[in-house]
Every structure is written in structure tokens, then in C-alpha cells.
């Protein structure tokens, strides 16, 4: 690819913002561990989980829909794993399979309702969010009388699962590998396959897509299932690593994932976006979050910095893009 084409990439801005944030924290918090290996590992671990959610969320948003239910899908999936293993005595892998099946059903239901009724997905998935969150709380308390379930390490197959979902490679979490792999896969699907082409069309001009014979509804349903399965995967990471789960796991992750996607240049109105951008958005978010802690800002003022750094990052992002657009002409 020529230099001009690289300049035209939508991710350029967010990459610049990531570099700027890194430099900022390297200067302000460099001596308190931000630059160490374990410091780097700490924000990468946050970015990895968020990034795994943000990739399918970006695809869904490019196709013009939202999924607000991924946070509570995480809670429901994690609790399914925990309950199946501790209460029913299933091996861990069976629990994970059950959770994945549940997540797939949730995604299917979301997609089905959205495409059939043409209701805004914002509302439909908000409804699913409530139903799943409430269902998780109600079921868990009914069965265990508590809101936390632990003791997963006694389940069969925990050892292998731990290596796969919660292992460490040096100081780095294995989720990093998952993140890289899934980002590469999602990027490939988006820019190099037919379904990827359709995703852009479905979000950019739904009527045109329909007239050209693209199975708009099927594309959307599959994307809703993908976001739900990604939520289940992240829930699996957390449940295995922390050997248990609670009913509030994942609350608010949906907004973080949307934020990461938008930071990475995905349009809220659909039709444009990139998976690599979403990954960079997740990295930026994780770096800012951890960087503030490293720089020792008082908890009371934490959010002020988060907000300010966010706005500055996006400003930098957009000004770089504008420069690039001018250079292109």
C-alpha cells in the first residue's frame, strides 16, 4: 500500500491518539511503573477483554444496529457456567458449552425481534438487558440464595480451561492472544469476504442492500449472535480466572464496547467503521484507565481525568484525520 493510502486509513487518528496517550503517561507516570512490563501487561489485559467485545460490536454498528445486552449476557453466561459446574456438578466444559448455547439464543432472539418488528435495536436490546439481568439475579438467588458463586476450581477440566482462558505468558495474560486472533479474524471477514461487504451495505444503505438481494436480516441476526458469543467468551475468561462469578458481572460493558468502537472511527449511524480501529479504541480506553491510576490521581478526581483525556484523544484523532484527508487531495 502506498503512503497516500496509509494516510487515508480511518484508523490513523486513533493510532495517533494511542501514541499520544502512551507518551503522556510515560512522562507523567513513567516512574511509577507504567513503563514496566507488568505495567504494560496490566493495561493490555483490560484492553484485551474490551477489544474482544468491541470487534463484533463494531461489526454490528457498521451494520447499523446496537447491542446493549452484551453486559448482561456476560452476567448470564458466567452464572450459567458457575451454576452448571457447582450446582449440577457438570464438568467445566459442559458448563461453557451451555453458556455458549444460551448466548447464541440471546443473540438469535435479539436479531429475530429486531429484524422482524423493525423496532430500533437500542430499545429491543435494552429490553433484553433488563430481562437477562433480572433473570440472572432471580435464578441465582432462587437456587443458591446468594449473588456470588465461587469454587469453580473443583470442577472437572478446570486445569485445561485455565491454561486456555486464564493462562499467563510471562507477565502477559493469554487473553491478549485471543484478542489479536479475533481482531485479525474479524478484520479479514470485514474487508476480504462477501459477508463483510454485505455488512457495510446493510448499514450504509439498507434499502439498496435489500434490492440487490443481500440477505439483510440474516446478516443482522448473525451479527447479534456474534456479539452475544463474544460476551460469553469474555465471561468465560473472567469466570475461570476468578474461579467464580457474581450477578453484576459485565454491567456497563456494552457502553464501553460502543465507546471503543466509536473511538476507533465506527459511525453510530452505521455504514462505516473498522475492526482495527475498534481494537485501538479498546487499547486507548484501557491505557487511559490504567494510566490515571499509575499517575496516582486521587480517586475523587479520577473521572475528571478520564473525561478530559477521552475528549483530547478524540480531538487529536479527528484533527489527524482531517489533515490526512487534506493531504490526500
Amino acid at each position, binding site marked *: 500500500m502506498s503512503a497516500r493510502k496509509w494516510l487515508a486509513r480511518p484508523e490513523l487518528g486513533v493510532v495517533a491518539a494511542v501514541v499520544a496517550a502512551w507518551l503522556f503517561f510515560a512522562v507523567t507516570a513513567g516512574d*511509577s*511503573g507504567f513503563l514496566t512490563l*507488568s*505495567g504494560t501487561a*496490566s*493495561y493490555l*489485559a*483490560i484492553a484485551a*477483554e474490551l477489544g474482544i467485545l468491541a470487534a463484533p460490536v463494531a461489526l454490528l454498528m457498521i451494520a447499523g444496529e446496537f447491542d446493549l445486552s452484551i*453486559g448482561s449476557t456476560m452476567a448470564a453466561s458466567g452464572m450459567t457456567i458457575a451454576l452448571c459446574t457447582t450446582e449440577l456438578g457438570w464438568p467445566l466444559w459442559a458448563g461453557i458449552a451451555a453458556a455458549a448455547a444460551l448466548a447464541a439464543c440471546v443473540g438469535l432472539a435479539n436479531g429475530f425481534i429486531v429484524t422482524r418488528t423493525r423496532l430500533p435495536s437500542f430499545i429491543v436490546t435494552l429490553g433484553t438487558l433488563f430481562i437477562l*439481568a433480572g433473570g440472572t*439475579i432471580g435464578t441465582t*438467588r432462587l437456587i*443458591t*440464595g*446468594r*449473588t*456470588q458463586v*465461587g*469454587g469453580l476450581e473443583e470442577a472437572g477440566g478446570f486445569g485445561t480451561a485455565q491454561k486456555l482462558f486464564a493462562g*499467563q505468558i510471562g507477565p502477559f495474560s493469554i487473553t491478549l492472544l485471543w484478542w489479536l486472533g479475533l481482531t485479525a479474524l474479524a478484520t479479514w471477514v470485514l474487508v476480504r469476504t462477501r459477508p463483510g461487504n454485505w455488512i457495510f451495505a446493510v448499514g450504509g444503505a439498507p434499502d439498496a442492500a435489500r434490492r440487490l438481494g443481500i440477505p439483510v436480516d440474516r446478516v443482522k441476526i448473525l451479527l447479534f449472535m456474534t456479539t452475544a458469543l463474544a460476551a460469553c467468551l469474555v465471561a468465560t*475468561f*473472567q469466570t475461570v*480466572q*476468578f*474461579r*467464580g462469578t*457474581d*450477578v*453484576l*458481572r*459485565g*454491567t*456497563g*460493558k456494552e457502553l464501553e464496547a460502543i465507546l471503543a468502537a466509536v473511538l476507533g472511527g465506527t459511525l453510530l449511524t452505521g455504514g462505516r467503521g473498522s475492526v482495527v480501529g475498534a481494537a485501538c479504541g479498546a487499547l486507548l480506553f484501557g491505557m487511559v*484507565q*490504567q494510566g490515571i*491510576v*499509575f499517575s*496516582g490521581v*486521587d*480517586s*475523587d478526581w*479520577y473521572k475528571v481525568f478520564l473525561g478530559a483525556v477521552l475528549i483530547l484523544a478524540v480531538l487529536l484523532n479527528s484533527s489527524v484525520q482531517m489533515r490526512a484527508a487534506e493531504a490526500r487531495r
Partner: protein
Amino acid sequence: GRGERASATTRDSSVRAHFAVVTHGQASDPFWSVVKNGIDQAAKDMGVKVTYQAPQTFDMVAMSRLIDAEVARKPSGLIVSVPDPSALARSLLAARDAGIPVISINAGGAEARKMGALLHIGQSEYDAGKAGGERMAKEGVRHAICVNHEVGNISQDERCRGFLDALEKVGGKGRVLAVNATSPTDTQQKIMAALTPDVDGIFTLGPPGVHPALAGLRQANRLGTVKVATFDLSPDVLAAVRDGQITFAIDQQQYLQGYLSVVLLAQYTRHGLLPAAEAIPTGPSFVTKENAAAVIDASKKGIR
């Protein structure tokens, strides 16, 4: 006044009594989950009907509206937590004026009594935090992190305030670390980022903070050198206390806050009986290596 109102409410005791509970913490919160278990058990034991309501977030306006709705349903008794007396005053006075007997639990105390509450069952969060701080100080902790998973929630803020005050008194210092209760990964990484070499103690406000704290210490190879203590119990917390990873856990015995409030309200509405005390303290009690194993079973059942 008390006797009169009692006789007024005993009259319709032939109908199945209905009590309403409104607190500032949802049953999805592990702490309040135990409170609710106490309530449900007492409802079964006493043969009364109890409903439990709480706002979606720490929201005093929403909470006062919930009390209003419950008062409009005319329950035989009302059990409330009163974290912000001035915000809830109007609703509580409305309950009093409607002749509904009120018991405050968890938070409230003297302020709630001024607004007509018959009795308070619970502990002072500040005092409990302070007791925790004193005990940590005794263990030799001087530089501590107070992990707050709900900044802005007055109960949690008071716990950290008491803890830090106690630590300061012995010349130590501490820092409040705000974390996200719903994401253990984020919480763990944040604790690790705040874990500078001089830190020798971590005080968490509940299980959402303590598991990530332990995982972080394990990963940083400082498990054992950094002392960990926490509020509130769970089977995992107790196992960690038993194994010596957690120095102690502060227990409010909040099950009693739920259980006793329903029992006492039932006795009061049926027979006009009421303990001759203004407040029944339920905590703080400390769970340590010595007694941890004994309460694990209770914790598994959601009683502690």
C-alpha cells in the same frame, strides 16, 4: 403515642400482615442479598408477606419514590434503611402520618428515630471501618489502599473514611482506590497499578474488591507480605481467611438486620411488643483464621 398506634394496628391482624422493605441496596448486591435472605426467612417463619424494593442505583430520589409507592399500598409495617435522612424525611413522615410503624435497618439510627422510626437495627459504617482500621494498624499496616467499588454510595464512603481515620491516628496513611465492581479484570489491574512497593495493606469493602485484590497480589508475588482485610463475607472470602490469605473479615451479621426487623415488626403489629432499646447493634464482628471454618457453611447458605 406508641401504645395507641399499636392498638390501632393490631385490630386488623386477622388479615395476613404485609410488610414493605425499602433499602438503598439492591438484592443483587452481595451484602443486601444476605439481608434479603433474612427477610425472606423471617417472612416464612412469621407467616407474613414481605416485599423488598431498592432503587437501581444509589439514588435517594428514586428511593423516596419507592417509599411513597409502598405507603400508598398501606402496608402493615415498613422497614427502611436511611442513608440520607434529610432526603428521605418527607417520605418517612408521610409513612408516620399514615400510621404505618417503621423500623430502620443498616443506616439511620438516631436521625431515623426523630422521624418516627420505632427502632434501629444495624451498625455504624464509620465505626465499623474505624474498627477495621485499628485492627489493621495493630497488624503493623501503615500504608494501605481502601478499595471502594461504589464511590458516592454513602455507606461505602463512610467505611473508607473510618478506616483511613483510624490509620492516620497511628501515623499511617492510606489512599482510596475507586474500582468498578462489575469488572474483576479491571479491578485487579487497577489494584496492581496502585500497588507501589511501600503499600503493606489492602482493605476492601466487599467481595467484589477482595477476589481481584487476592488475584493481583498472587500475580505480583506479594501475597502474604501485603495484609488483606475486607468487609462482608462469602464462602470464598472465608476460605481465604481460613487459609491465611486474608487477615480478617468484618461481618455486620446483616442477616439479622433483615430477620430481626421482620420478626420485631410482626410482634409489634400483632401484640404491641417492642424491645426496650433504641438500637440493636448487629456488628461489627471479626472473622479470623480461628473461627472462619465454622461459618463457611452459613455463608454458603447465604446467612453470612
